[in-house]
C-alpha cells in the first residue's frame, strides 16, 4: 500500500484531477473539503503529506497551516499550499508560516507530480 496524502480542497473538479494524478503515481489520496474540521481530520490520521488550499469554506488554509505547525504531531508533515489568488504576499505568508511549497493555480500536472516525488525523496 502506498503512502498517504491528504488533499484539503473544496472544488470537486480539482479534487478529482489531483486524486487522479497522484493515485496513478502510487499514492493513496484522502480528501477533505471543509476548513473548519480539517484539523480534526488530520489529527485523526496523520498523513505522509498534505496538500492544502488557501480559500476553504469555514476557515482559511493559512490558519490551518499555523495550527499544523503548532502541533507536535503534525509539525514535520510536508505541506504544499495551493492558491488561486496568486499574489506575492500570499506566497510570503505561506512560507513564513512554514509551508514546504507553494503552488499557484492553474498548475501543470507534472509540476504537482514532480514536487510530490521530490518531497518524498528528500
Amino acid at each position, binding site marked *: 500500500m502506498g503512502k498517504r496524502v491528504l488533499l484539503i480542497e*473544496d*472544488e470537486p*473538479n*480539482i479534487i*478529482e*484531477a*489531483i486524486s*487522479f*494524478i497522484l493515485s496513478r503515481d502510487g499514492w493513496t489520496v484522502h480528501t477533505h473539503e*471543509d476548513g*473548519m474540521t480539517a484539523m480534526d481530520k488530520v489529527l485523526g490520521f496523520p498523513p505522509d503529506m498534505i496538500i492544502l488550499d*488557501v*480559500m476553504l*469554506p*469555514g*476557515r*482559511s488554509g*493559512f*490558519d490551518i497551516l*499555523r*495550527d499544523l505547525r503548532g502541533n507536535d504531531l503534525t509539525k514535520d508533515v510536508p505541506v504544499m499550499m495551493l*492558491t*488561486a*489568488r*496568486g*499574489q506575492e*504576499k*500570499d506566497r510570503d*505568508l505561506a512560507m513564513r*508560516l512554514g509551508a514546504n511549497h507553494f503552488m*499557484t*493555480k*492553474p*498548475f*501543470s*500536472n*507534472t509540476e504537482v507530480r514532480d514536487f510530490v516525488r521530490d518531497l518524498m525523496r528528500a
Partner: protein
Amino acid sequence: MSFNSLIAIALGYVIFLFAVAFLAERRAIAGHSNWLQSPIIYTLSLSIYCTAWTFYGAVGYAARSGLEFVTIYLGPTLMMVGWWWVLRRLVRIGRAQRITSIADLVSSRFGKSTQLGIIVTLISVIAGTPYIALQLQSVTLSFAVFSQVEGVSWDQADFYRAAVWVAIGLAVFTVLFGTRNLDANERHHGIVMAIAVEAVVKLLALVAVGAFVVWGVAGGPGAMLARIDASEINLWDQNSGRWIGLIFLSAAAFLCLPRMFQVLVVENADERHLHIASWAFPLYLFLMSLFVVPIAVVGLDLLPAGSNPDLFVLTVPLNQGQGGLAVLSFLGGLSSATSMVIVATLALATMVSNHMVVPLWLRLQGSQHATMSGDVRHVILLSRRLSIAAILALGFLYYRVSGGGTALAAIGLISFTGAVQILPAMIGGVFWRGATGVGAAMGLITGLLIWLWSLFLPSFGADAIISEAVMTNGPWGLNWLRPQALFGITDLDPLVHGIMWSMLLNAGMFVIGSLVTFPAPLERLQGAQFVNVFDHSNAAPTWTPAAAGAEDLLIMAQRIMGGNEAQAIFEQEAKAQGKAGYLPEVTLEFIERLERELAGSVGAATAHAMIGQLIGGSSVSVEDLIAVADEAAQILEYSNRLEEKSKEQERTARALRDANAKLTALSIQKDAFLSQISHELRTPMTSIRSFSDILREGEMSTDEQARYAGIIHDEAVRLTRLLDDLLDLAVLENGQVVLHEQTGNLSDLLDRAVRTSGAYDGRLTILRHRPDENFNLTADLDRLGQVFINLISNARKYCDAATPELTIKVGRSSMGAFVDFIDNGSGIASDNQALIFEKFSRLTDGSKAGGAGLGLAICREVMQRLGGDVAYLANVAGGAFRVTLPPAKNPAKLEQT
C-alpha cells in the same frame, strides 16, 4: 422615628434611585442624553471619592486627630486645580484608545499585555475589597444606631444579616444598570445619574447637620469659633511627614482608584467637562469639609464620653431630638456608601472579566473561537455579572472575617496606598516613551509586595497573620526586613513608612526595568500613541496587511458587539470608502478602528489577540516599525520645514498627503478585487488545464475520456459566464448602462423569467397568484427580467428542501409595489444576510455559494439603476428576497383582461 419606618424610608430611597437610573437609561436610549452629559453631572459623579468613610469618618478623624482629615480633601483639590492637565491627558488617551478600566490603560500602553492587565486587576481587587467591606460596615452601623434609639441593641448576627441584604441589593443594582450593554463607550448613564443624585443628597445632608450644629446648637458662627477654641481638639499639632504623605496619597489615589478612573475617564463624555470640574469639584470638597470640625467639637461636648465619634453625624441630631435631620443624615451616609460600592464593583468587575475571565475563556476555546464558537458577547456579559456578585461577596466576606471592628476603620488609607501602586506605571506610561512593560511589571510587583508586607498584612492585627516576633525582630531574625522598619528606617509613622518604601522601590524598579529592557514593537507604537496623544491623531498602523476577509471580521464583530452595531460600523466604513453594503475593504486603518471598537467591549489585550487570530498573527514587525518611524520622521521634518516657510505651502502639502492617502486606499481596494477575480477565474482554469493534461497523456477508458471532456466543457461554460457577469457588473458600476424603457405586463415578464431560468425541469415547483401580477409597468424590462431570472435560478440551485417550492407573491407597501421570491428551504443564516449582496461573498456556514457569487451583486446594481431595490427578508421561513419595483412609472393597474 421608629426603626421600621427608617427601613421603609431607606427602601423608598433605593426605589427612587432605581427609578432615576431607569429613566436616565431610557432617555439615553431615546437619544435625549444631552443633559445627562452635562459637566455638572460629571462633577457630581466625581463625588464618589467621598465615601461613607469621609461622610461619617471625617468627623471621627477630626475628633481624634484634629485637622489632619483635611489632607484627604487637599490631595484631589490640588490635582484638579493644579494638575488637571494630567487628567486631560488620561481622558484623551482613554477616548482615543477606548480604554475600559485602569488595568486596560496599563495593559494597552505596554503592548496590550495580558499579564500587566492581570497584575493591575489583582492589585485593585486586593486593595478594593477592604474598602467595600468598610462601606458595608458603615451602612449596618448606621442602621444599628437607629435601632439602639428604640432600645434594641444588635448582636453580631444582626450586623451580618443586614450586611448581606445590603450587599445583595447593591449587586442587583450594579448588574441591572452596569451590564445592560457592553461597549464602555456607551457609558452607564443610569448609574452616573443615580450617583449624581446621591452626591447632592450627601452634600445636603452634611451641610444641613453642619448648619444645625452651628446655628441651632452653638448659636452662630462667632459662638461656634469660641467653642472650637475652647475644645480639647488639638487642631494644629501636626506631624508634617504624615501631612505630606497623606496629601500625596490622596492625590494619587484620586487618579488610581479603579472607581475614580471609571468616572473620571471611562464615563467622561466630553474633555471640556474637566474645565468646569476643575473648580466645581474642589468647591464640592470644600463644602463637604466645611462643617466637619464644628460637628466634631459639638459632638464631643454633647455626647457622653466614649461615644463613637465616627457616628456623630447621626448621633448629634438624634441626641438633640432632630429625628428628621438624623434621617437625612442617614440617607447621606447610605448614598456615600452605595454610590462608592456600585461604581467600585462595576470597575473591578469589568477588570476581572476583561483581563482574567475572558482571556482564560478564549484560551480554553482554542484558536477557532473568533469566527465560530458561541456568542462571545453573551459570555462577556455573564462573566461581568458573575464578577460583580463575586466582588461583593468578597467584600462581605472580608467584613465578616475582620469582625467589622476598628481594624476595618483603619483600612481606608491602607487601601489607598495599595491602589496607588499603579501610579508609576500609569504616569510613566503616558509621559515617558522609554517605559517598558517589563519595567512596569517589576515596579507593580515590587510595590505590591512591599505594600502587603508593610501595611496590609500587619493591618489584620498582631499575631493575626504576621506574628509579634516578626514585627519586632524581622523574619528569620533579619532585622532590616521588619515590616514597619524596612532597611533600618525606624521612628517613622507606619503609614508614611509604607507609602515611602513602596512608592520609592516601585518607581525605582519601574525606571531601572525600563532602562535595561528593550520595548517590543507593539509596545513602542502604543507608547508613542499614548505619550504623543496631543501631537497627532494619525496613529501608525500596528498591523501588516494580510489575509483577513471583511466577512470574517464582520462575523467576529457581530459575535461581540451584536448584529446591529457591528453592521452599522461596517456599513459606515464601506460608505466612507464609497461602497454600498456591509463589506468595506480591509484597510489597515479599518482594522485599527475595529480593534479600538472591540477594545471598548473586551479590553485592548483581548481585542488585539482576537484580531490577531483572524489576521493570521501578522502583527507589526520590527522592519515595519522602522519603516513607519522613518516615514513619520520624514513627513514631520518635511512639514516642519514647510511650516517655517508659509502656511499656504503647508496647506498644499496636506492636500498632497490626502490625495496620496486616497490613491493608496483606491489601490488597496483594487488589489482586493483583483485578487478575488483572480481566484474566481483561476479555479475553473485549473480544472481545464489539469484534465486536458490528463487527456493528452492518454491511457484511460472511453468512459473516463468522455467524463473528463465533460468536465472541461462545463468549466469552460462557467468561465464564460463569469466573464459575462464581470463585464456586466463593470458596466453597471461605472454607470455607463443605457436603460431601454418599455411598458409591459408584470405577469408576462415573470412567465418569461421562469422559462429562461430553466425552472421547468421539474425540480422546483413555482407557486404564483396571477391576478395580483396583472398590471403594467414601465421600466427596462430586460434588466428587471434579469433580476427575476437570477432569483429564480438561485432558488432552483440552492433551495435545500426535499420538494423545493418557490412562491412568487406580488404586494404593495408604503415603498411601492414589490415582488417577493420565497422558497421553502432553510434560508440564509442571519450572520450572512448582510453579506450576500457583496461581490464574491462566500457564506461562512460551509454551504457553498457556487457560481462566482456575482449574481446578487448584479441584481443589486441593476435595481439601484432602475430606482427600485432588492433586499433579503429576514424573519421569513426559507430563503426570501423582495424586489421593490421602481416607483415613478409603476402600477397604473389595468382592468382585468
